[in-house]
């Protein structure tokens, strides 16, 4: 019944961290039950540092851990082969703090200098994901895999600032609901 564990690390979030102003470092622990059911826990650290937007002049910073828990099912007929096609669900949660700054700008009517900023505004986010993924054995315990995810927010607290922009683990709110990972997986 129980066929071991696998640990994995996502490369997409790491690449985004290097190539843009936000991204995640994420790892996962997956339990193998009969090559058919795979309970999984994902833990990551998401970070955004959007300095002085060139159009709006807004600076947005946040960093926080996030957690996902869920289960995948091997959809292939041959459950015990070297390749797997996963379909699964996740529940995700994060609690994070946002720093928001806007450089001073004049009130259009009264001409007073106005700026706004908040620091360490506490926020939280709960969401669900539907996952479709692939896992292929390369050699020995090493696998490579990717997944496509459809994310949906189920509860949130954006603090007093209105809305939040980047949410650790979820991504940019209001952007596309699709996301993906590319995983390096090692069987234990």
């Amino acid at each position, binding site marked *: 019944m129980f066929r071991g564990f696998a640990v994995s690390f996502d490369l997409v979030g790491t690449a985004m961290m290097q190539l843009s102003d936000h991204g995640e470092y994420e790892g996962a622990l997956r339990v193998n039950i009969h090559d058919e059911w795979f309970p999984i826990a994902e833990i990551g650290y998401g970070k955004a540092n959007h300095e002085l937007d060139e159009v709006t002049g807004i600076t*947005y910073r946040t960093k926080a851990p996030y957690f996902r828990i869920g289960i995948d099912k091997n959809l292939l007929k041959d459950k015990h082969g070297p390749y797997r096609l996963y379909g699964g669900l996740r529940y995700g949660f994060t609690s994070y703090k946002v720093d928001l700054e806007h450089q001073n700008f004049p*009130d*259009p009517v*009264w001409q007073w200098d106005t700026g*706004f900023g908040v620091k360490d505004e506490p926020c939280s986010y709960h969401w669900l994901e539907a996952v479709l993924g692939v896992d292929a054995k390369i050699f020995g315990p090493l696998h490579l895999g990717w997944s496509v995810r459809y994310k949906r927010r189920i509860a949130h607290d954006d603090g007093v600032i*209105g809305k939040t922009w980047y949410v650790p683990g979820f991504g940019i709110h209001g*952007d*596309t609901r699709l996301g993906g990972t590319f995983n390096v997986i090692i069987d234990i």
Partner: protein
Amino acid sequence: MRKLLFVIVAVWLAACSSIDCPVQNIVSVQYEIRDKAGAALSIKDTLSVVTTRLDGSNVLLDITTLLDGKNVILNKLIDKSAFSLPISYSHPEDVLFFCFTDTVKTVVDTVWIEKDDIPHFESVDCSASFFHELKGVRFTRNAIDSLVLLNKSVTYDQETVHFRLVPKSSD
């Protein structure tokens, strides 16, 4: 070829993003003009509203100078029963001069609007804005009979009326 097409579509889907800034993003205070019975009243005297900019100049300005200058925020409203006025981004109290002009003279009332200013953030792609909580209003009674605060919350909502103005000429 089909595999290439699939990859292109997948990459395009993942690359899609949108900027969801609200189309209606003006924050202003809505006024309705009513008679003492509460019925809608089209104002017959020309109404202009002016304010003074915080540029260090003396606030006791001659009213004709105010009406001709850049400080006019509502200009010669007539035969209307509603109007909207801007509200300052961040100042605890706005001071407005309501100038009612008939064929003979101009009567001026001063209105002080006390408020809290709440920064509102949508996205790093959207301009900064402020929402407001109106805390109270004081006014002189030269031409204004009453100015009642109806709703305290000033947001992007242009339908909610915040003040009811009853002019003395509505007798």
